[in-house]
C-alpha cells in the first residue's frame, strides 16, 4: 500500500509534466519577448547534417527554452531565486545600491579574456585600436571628433561596492589620443554630473540618457567651432516616457527595480527633416511605435540601421559623417539641427575615409562605446 502523500506526489508531478509538455506544442510560437526585449528562437530545421553534427539538438534546446509555456513567469522565478541567495547577481548582471543594474565586471573581463589573455595585453589591444583612431585623424582631410562613451560601471563607479582596481586605466589610455583625433573625455564630463545626482545614464539600460547625450552634444559643438550654435536646454520641450526597462534589466530580470524614464527632447522644427534609413524614409527622428514596446530606446532613429542620412530640405548645410553604435542614436537628433548627417554603423562599415570622401563630409564624428571597443575590436579596423 501507499500513503496518500505519495499518490499526490505522483499525480502532481505527472500533471505538471503533462500540462507543460502538451501546452508547449499547443501554444503558438512567439517571435519576440517583450519582457526580455529580444527575438526568440524558432523551430530549427531538421536535416541529416544538422542532426549528426549535433547542431539540431543544440538548437532545439534553445527553441524549447525560448518557446516554453509561461516563459516570462519562469524567468522571473529564476531571478527571484538567484536574488534569494543574496548573490546580487543574475545572468552576469549586478544589482547595485541605488537599484542600478549593470553588467558584472567579471563578465567584461571574460570578454577581454576571449580575445586577449592578461590585463596588460588587453590594454595593449585597446592601445592598438586607439592607434587606428589616431591614424584616421591624421589621414582625414576634415576635422575628426572622437567620443568613446564609458559603460555604466565606469560612470557609476561609486555606487558599486565592487572595487575595480585599474578600472579607469582604459580612459587614461584614451586620454593619450593625439590632437588630430579630437577626443572628448566623456568620463570626466559625465561622471561628476552623475555624482552630483544628475540622470545621465539609465539604471536599467546600458545607454546614456538623452540628458547625458545633450552634454556630449555641447562638447562636440564646441570642438567643431560652433559653440555659438549650441541650442540651450531651455528651448527644448521635454517629453518624459515612464516605464522604460532596458537591456541590462531584461538580461537580469530582477523582479524588483525602479524603471527608467526615457526623455525625448522636442524642438518646433522636429518634422522638417528628411530622414532616410537603409533606403526607407523615416517618419521623423522618433519612431513612436517603440514607445509601446519594451525596446523603447529604439524610438531614437528607429533603432540600429546601417546607413542613415538626415537633411533639412531647402537649407544648404555642412555634412557631418557619424561612424557610430547605438549610443549615437539619441545624440544625432541634436546634431542634425546644425548639420546634414550621414550616420554609418561602425560595426559593419569601417572604411570611414572613403565614406567621408564620397559623401563630401565636412567633419567626421566617431561614437563607439567602451563595451563595444573591448568586446568587438571593430575600432581597430578604422581606415
Amino acid at each position: 500500500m501507499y500513503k496518500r502523500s505519495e499518490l499526490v506526489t505522483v499525480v502532481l508531478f505527472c500533471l505538471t509534466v503533462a500540462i507543460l509538455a502538451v501546452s508547449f506544442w499547443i501554444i503558438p510560437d512567439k517571435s519576440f519577448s517583450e519582457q526580455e526585449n529580444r527575438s526568440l528562437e524558432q523551430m530549427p530545421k531538421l536535416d541529416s547534417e544538422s542532426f549528426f553534427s549535433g547542431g539540431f539538438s543544440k538548437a532545439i534546446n534553445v527553441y524549447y527554452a525560448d518557446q516554453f509555456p509561461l516563459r516570462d513567469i519562469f524567468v522571473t522565478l529564476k531571478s527571484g531565486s538567484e536574488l534569494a541567495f543574496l548573490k546580487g547577481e543574475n545572468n552576469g548582471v549586478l544589482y547595485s545600491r541605488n537599484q542600478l543594474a549593470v553588467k558584472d565586471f567579471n563578465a567584461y573581463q571574460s570578454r577581454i579574456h576571449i580575445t586577449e589573455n592578461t590585463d596588460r595585453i588587453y590594454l595593449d589591444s585597446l592601445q592598438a585600436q586607439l592607434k587606428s583612431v589616431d591614424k584616421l585623424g591624421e589621414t582625414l582631410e576634415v576635422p575628426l571628433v572622437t567620443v568613446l562613451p564609458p559603460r555604466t560601471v565606469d560612470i557609476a563607479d561609486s555606487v558599486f561596492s565592487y572595487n575595480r582596481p585599474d578600472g579607469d586605466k582604459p580612459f587614461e589610455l584614451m586620454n593619450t589620443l593625439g590632437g588630430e583625433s579630437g577626443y572628448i573625455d566623456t568620463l570626466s564630463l559625465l561622471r561628476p554630473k552623475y555624482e552630483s545626482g544628475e540622470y545621465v545614464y539609465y539604471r536599467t539600460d546600458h545607454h546614456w540618457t538623452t540628458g547625458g547625450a545633450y552634454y556630449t552634444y555641447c562638447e562636440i559643438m564646441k570642438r567643431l567651432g560652433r559653440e555659438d550654435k549650441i541650442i540651450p536646454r531651455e528651448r527644448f520641450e521635454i517629453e518624459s516616457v515612464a516605464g522604460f526597462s532596458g537591456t541590462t534589466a531584461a538580461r537580469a530580470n530582477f523582479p524588483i527595480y525602479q524603471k527608467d524614464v526615457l526623455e525625448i527632447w522636442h524642438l518646433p522644427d522636429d518634422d522638417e527633416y528628411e530622414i532616410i534609413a537603409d533606403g526607407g524614409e523615416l517618419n521623423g527622428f522618433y519612431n513612436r511605435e517603440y514607445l509601446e514596446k519594451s525596446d523603447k530606446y529604439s524610438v531614437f532613429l528607429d533603432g540600429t540601421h546601417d546607413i542613415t542620412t538626415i537633411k533639412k530640405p531647402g537649407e544648404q548645410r555642412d555634412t557631418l559623417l557619424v561612424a557610430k553604435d547605438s549610443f549615437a542614436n539619441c545624440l544625432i537628433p541634436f546634431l542634425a539641427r546644425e548639420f546634414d548627417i550621414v550616420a554609418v554603423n561602425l560595426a559593419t562599415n569601417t572604411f570611414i575615409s572613403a565614406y567621408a570622401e564620397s559623401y563630401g563630409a565636412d567633419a567626421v564624428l566617431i561614437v563607439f562605446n567602451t563595451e563595444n571597443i573591448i568586446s568587438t575590436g571593430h575600432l581597430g579596423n578604422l581606415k
Partner: protein
Amino acid sequence: MVFSSLIFIFAYLAVTLAVYYVAPLKWRNLVLFVVSLAFYGWGEPKYISLMVVSILIAYIFGFFIEKYREKNKRLAKLFLALSLVGNLSFLLFFKYYNFFAENIGFAQIEGLTLPVGISFYTFQIMSYSIDLYRGEVPLAKRFVPFGTYVTLFPQLIAGPIVRYKDVCDQLESRKETVSKFAFGVSRFVTGLAKKLILGDSAAAIAEAFERSAEFEPTVIGTWLIMICYTFHIYFDFSGYSDMAIGLGRMFGFEFVENFNYPYIAKSITDFWRRWHITLSTWFKEYVYIPLGGNRVGKIRGFINLATVWFLTGFWHGADWNYILWGVYFWVFLVIEKAFLGKLLKKLPPLAHIYSLFIVGFGWMIFFHSDLAAIAQSAKQLFGIGTALLSEGTLYTVLRLLPFIVISALACTPLPKTAFERLLARFPKLNAFKPLLLCLLFLVCVAYMVDNTFSPFLYYIF
C-alpha cells in the same frame, strides 16, 4: 540529452512514461530498450552501432562461457578473455589511443571523439561477463532484457555503474508501484535541484574566479576556486546519480546508491567509501580482489593498491593529471593504512579538515590538465608570492558567502534530518510535502528555461 534539459523532461520522459505504462507488462523491457537506444542516438548518433556491437559481443560470448564453465575451465576462460578484450578494445581505442600516440610518438587520429558513456557501459557489460564466468549470475538468454540492462537510459551515460547481478532479477520481474514512483519523483527533483541551482552556480563562480585570477590572483580567491570546484563536482555528479536512481525507480528499478555524503568523511579511506561507490566497488571486485587483495604480502598489497588507483585515475580521463589524481589518493590511502588512520580517529575535527583539504586539492588536480597550473595553484593557496586579498575579491567573496554556506550545508545530512525531524514533530506538514516538491520542480524548470539566454549581439547594438 542531459536529464537537466527541458527537452528531456517535457518531451522524452513524458512520452517514455506514457508509452511504458500503457504497454502490456511483457513489452515493457522492449519499450525501455527502444527508448534508451533513441536516448543514446539523440546525443551520439554516430556511435550507437558501437554500443550495440559491444552488447552483442558480451551477449554471444556469454553462451560460450556458460557452455564450457563447468566442463572446460580453460575454454571458458578463453571466451571470457575474448569477450573482455572485445569490449575493452573499443574503450582503449576511443578513449586512450590519442593519449598513447602522443606520448609514444605515433600519429594521432584527428577528430577521434569519445563515444558518450562508453566508460560506464563498458564496465557494466564486463561485470556481466566476469560474473557469468564466476557463476554468480545466470546466463542472459534473451537479448532484449540484456540489451535493456546495458542501455537503460537512467544510468547509461554517467552511472551509477550497475552490476548485472544487482539488477538481473529486476530485469525479469519488477513491480512498479505508487510508492516507488513517488520516491523516484522526489529523488529526481532533488538531483535536478542539486545540479541546476547549486552545481551550475558553483561552476559559474569557479570559472569567474579563474578568469579574474589571471588579472589579480589572491590567496582567498584561490581557496574560493578550490571550494567551488569541490561543490560543483559533488552537486553535479551526485545530482546526476540522484536523478538516475529516481528515474530508475519510476520504472520500478532499484539501483544501488552511488554517494553517501562524501564530504563528511573523516579520512581519505572513508571518503572513497562514500564517493562514486559503484566505481570503487567495481574496481575492488574486478581488479583488486582478483589481484589478491590484501591477502598478500605487504609490498604486493601496496602494488595491488597502486594498480587500482592508477586505473581509477586513468579511467576518469586519458591525461596525466587524471593519473596523478589517482596516484595522489593512493599515497594518502597508504599513509593512512600505515599510521595516519589511527591518529585521525583520535582527532575527529582535524580529521575532517584534513580530508576535505586533500579531496579539495584533488579536484584542483582533476580540473587542471596543465601540471604547471596545479603547482601554481598550490603556491597560491599558501600565499607564496600572492597577495592575501584584493578589494575586488573581498567584495565578491562577501557577496557569495550566503551561497557558499548554503552549499556547505547541502553537502551534509543536516537538511535531510532537520526536515525529517520537523515532519515528525508536525505530522500535518506531511500534506505539504508534495506541494513543496512540486514548487522545487518548478524552480528547476525556471533555471532550465533561463539558462540558454545569450543576448550577446542584441545587447551590443
